[in-house]
């Protein structure tokens, strides 16, 4: 029943998409300055049905309607209500439907909210976006239909991968999808802009808000994913340069570059071709990431959704997107000459773009090199953190200096003497760094530079805050928050990296392990039955000799029944200054448990400062036009 409704709705949406493309191309030829009413109506219908379609699937999951294969494969009656809903997008087919939802919703909103802009430009955007929608709808129908039915109807489902049954991970996909799929709208707009020659400042204004929205959600989505990896995967880290994390980072670099250069386009009417390239690149990279993850070319924690047959389709569609975008760009773009003064805001924004592109290329190379090597020479390798750390970290130092002083320059040409203003924060940064170096431990020259530049960015931005409070015309708050967040993030990651304490050992119940200033007493294990899993809970008593503090840590090993899986839940004690992190895992055929104990300073501040970066974006979204 639900299966039929769902499939009918998908077909209906496809037909509506075709109708929109048809009516819109027809309307293009009419010289009236306003768009036909019927197009609005069609688009609204399309949006309504798409949302309904998604709700149909959600209802299937809530009611555990196992006549739908997708529900049968990814749900179970004993699953908590919340995860039944989250299961909707916890699998490939359902998440593709969510993907289409975002495409359609953004398409409609862009149409409605840009009524002041050129008709031709808007119609082309709508056509282009609907071609994307159709492409993904066909993919859904041909290869990944979430509404496929099964006979006879199974009594019980197979269950959702327990590792995904987690609040952070339930919201992680929708956030990322708004971020990544949201990029589609300015991909379409960029193509439309080339086709309709609607360029420059007005174009920048039409896509500005969409770029910001998708940037905010991407940033937040990546943070949530990283947070999940920290406490769920049990490795004690928060960023692993895992191929899928890298795939999510690529569009983020592109969009961050875009967000900055868009300001130049809006204020100075320059860099138009570059902005177009970034618009196209952001969505292309999003789809490339999806392709790499979903096709199974890359293997990682996200392989729940891999299947080579899917890969073929996404690759074909990706090729179509890239090649047509390139062709249109080469045919339509006009050469632009610009002449920026070295001491101007636009030069610094351009510098930001170079850095972002450099990071992007580095991560892209690290990610694709193993695939290329495998295909061309049959050698299997993997590129790990050392590569990324060596190439990326040194360049963060100059980036942070530029982030600090760049915004101080005015457009076109600055007359201000900047040198004496940076003297005080630089001195402050050096002194604080010396203090840390002297009292807490020695570290390398590069780490020194990282600390100094991060502290410089923080201090310099703090001065901005002081100024912001005193001044009457309030400007640049979002930028201040985000840049401050970035400076703090790098600083705390540096501290965390330098002063983390980690120990790996095996322990039996009743044994005691002493190390450094800690003593760990493995007191007991308990078994706990829960709704959909059984847990082995360890009781650990942790004594800190330095301040005679006693704490209890309770890591778990969970045995989920549907499907049968083991997960390791870390015990984390968070304090303002540090996190204590303890995981245990069973060693097969023995009474010993493998214990991993870590003391990670300022963990919570890493999350807070990362959230600040995203917060800056959200603050900007709430501001009115003139305030910025």
């Amino acid at each position, binding site marked *: 029943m639900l299966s039929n409704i769902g499939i009918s709705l998908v077909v209906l949406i496809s037909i509506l998409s075709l109708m929109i493309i048809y009516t819109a191309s027809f309307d293009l030829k009419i010289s009236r300055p306003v768009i036909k009413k019927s197009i609005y109506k069609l688009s609204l219908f399309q949006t309504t049905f798409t949302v309904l379609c998604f709700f149909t699937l959600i209802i299937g999951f809530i009611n555990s309607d196992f006549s739908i294969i997708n529900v049968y494969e990814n749900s179970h009656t004993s699953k908590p209500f919340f995860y039944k809903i989250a299961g909707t997008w916890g699998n490939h087919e359902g998440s593709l439907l969510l993907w289409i939802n975002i495409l359609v919703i953004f398409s409609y909103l862009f149409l409605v909210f840009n009524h002041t802009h050129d008709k031709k430009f808007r119609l082309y955007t709508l056509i282009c976006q609907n071609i994307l929608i159709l492409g993904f709808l066909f993919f859904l129908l041909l290869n990944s239909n979430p509404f496929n039915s099964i006979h006879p109807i199974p009594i019980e489902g197979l269950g959702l991968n327990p590792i995904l049954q987690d609040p952070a991970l339930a919201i992680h996909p929708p956030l990322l999808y708004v971020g990544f799929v949201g990029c589609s709208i300015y991909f379409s707009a960029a193509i439309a802009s080339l086709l309709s020659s609607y360029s420059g400042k007005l174009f920048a204004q039409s896509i500005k808000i969409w770029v910001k929205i998708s940037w905010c959600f991407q940033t937040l989505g990546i943070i949530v994913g990283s947070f999940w990896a920290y406490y769920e995967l049990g490795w004690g880290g928060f960023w692993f340069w895992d191929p899928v994390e890298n795939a999510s980072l690529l569009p983020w670099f592109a969009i961050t570059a875009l967000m900055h250069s868009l300001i130049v386009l809006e204020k100075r009417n320059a860099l138009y071709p570059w902005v177009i390239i970034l618009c196209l690149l952001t969505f292309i990279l999003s789809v490339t990431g999806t392709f790499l993850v979903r096709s199974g070319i890359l293997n990682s924690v996200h392989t729940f959704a891999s299947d080579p047959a899917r890969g073929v389709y996404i*690759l074909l569609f990706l*090729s179509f997107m890239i090649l047509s975008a390139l062709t249109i760009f080469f045919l339509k773009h006009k050469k632009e000459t610009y002449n920026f003064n070295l001491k101007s805001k636009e030069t610094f924004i351009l510098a930001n773009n170079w850095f972002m592109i450099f990071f992007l290329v580095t991560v892209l190379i690290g990610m694709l090199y193993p*695939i290329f090597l495998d295909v061309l020479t049959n050698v299997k390798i993997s590129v790990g953190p050392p590569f990324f750390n060596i190439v990326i970290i040194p360049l963060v130092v100059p980036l942070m200096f530029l982030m600090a002083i760049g915004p101080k320059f005015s457009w076109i040409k600055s007359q201000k003497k900047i040198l004496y203003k940076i003297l005080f924060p630089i001195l402050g940064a050096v002194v604080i760094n010396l203090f840390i170096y002297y009292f807490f431990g020695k570290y390398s020259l590069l780490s020194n530079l990282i600390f100094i530049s991060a502290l410089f960015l923080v201090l310099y931005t703090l001065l901005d805050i002081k100024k912001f409070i005193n001044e009457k015309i309030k400007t640049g708050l979002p930028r201040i928050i985000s840049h401050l967040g970035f400076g703090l993030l790098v600083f705390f990651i540096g501290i965390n990296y330098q002063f983390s304490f980690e120990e790996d050992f095996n322990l039996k119940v009743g044994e005691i392990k002493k190390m450094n200033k800690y003593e760990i007493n493995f007191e007991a294990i308990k078994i706990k039955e829960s709704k959909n899993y059984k847990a082995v809970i360890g009781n650990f008593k942790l004594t800190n000799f330095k301040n005679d503090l006693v704490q209890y840590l309770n890591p778990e090993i969970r045995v989920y029944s549907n499907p049968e899986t083991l997960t390791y839940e870390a015990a984390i004690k968070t304090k303002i200054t540090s996190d204590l992190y303890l995981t245990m895992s069973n060693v097969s055929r023995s009474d010993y448990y493998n214990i991993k104990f870590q003391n990670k300073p300022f963990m919570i501040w890493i999350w807070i400062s990362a959230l600040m970066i995203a917060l800056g974006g959200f603050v900007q979204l709430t501001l009115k036009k003139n305030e910025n």
Partner: protein
Amino acid sequence: MKINILKIIIFSFVIFFLCVFWVGLKKTKNYDTKTLIGSRISNFQLTEINNVDQYISEEDLKKNKFTLINFFASWCAPCRAEHKYLLNLSSKGKKIKIIGINFKDKKNNAINFLKELGNPYNFVGMDLKGKFSILFGIYGIPESILIDNNLIIIKKFVGPIDQTHYNEILKLIQ
């Protein structure tokens, strides 16, 4: 003309990237057992299905000039189809010995299966849980592996043995 060259370079670059993705996609990684050919069998030890005390090991395999290891189960229909070729092979006598490995099956069903269709095997090993067969990259049965007296895998047959395979085996053991 300068800009055109740039365009061509960019286009070729993109196409090269896409082609690499395409080839990467076509390379099936997870279930590729072709690489097994030429490798040596190790850790081979199985118990006989009728008699738990009796087992077969690598030393026994070395005595045969050629050995065909056949993975079968009573619940597997194609196994019935290939059975007559196995019986024919076993009648060829000394040159080749056939070892059956009973895959994810019930013991009694397997014994009845052999009673019904005849027993081509010189030895029937048990792998009731299918764990042992993983070593040979078995992911569906029937599958057969032909090895020589140095325990090197010469040929792997995925799916039921048919007339062509049968002729091929006869040729190989000549």
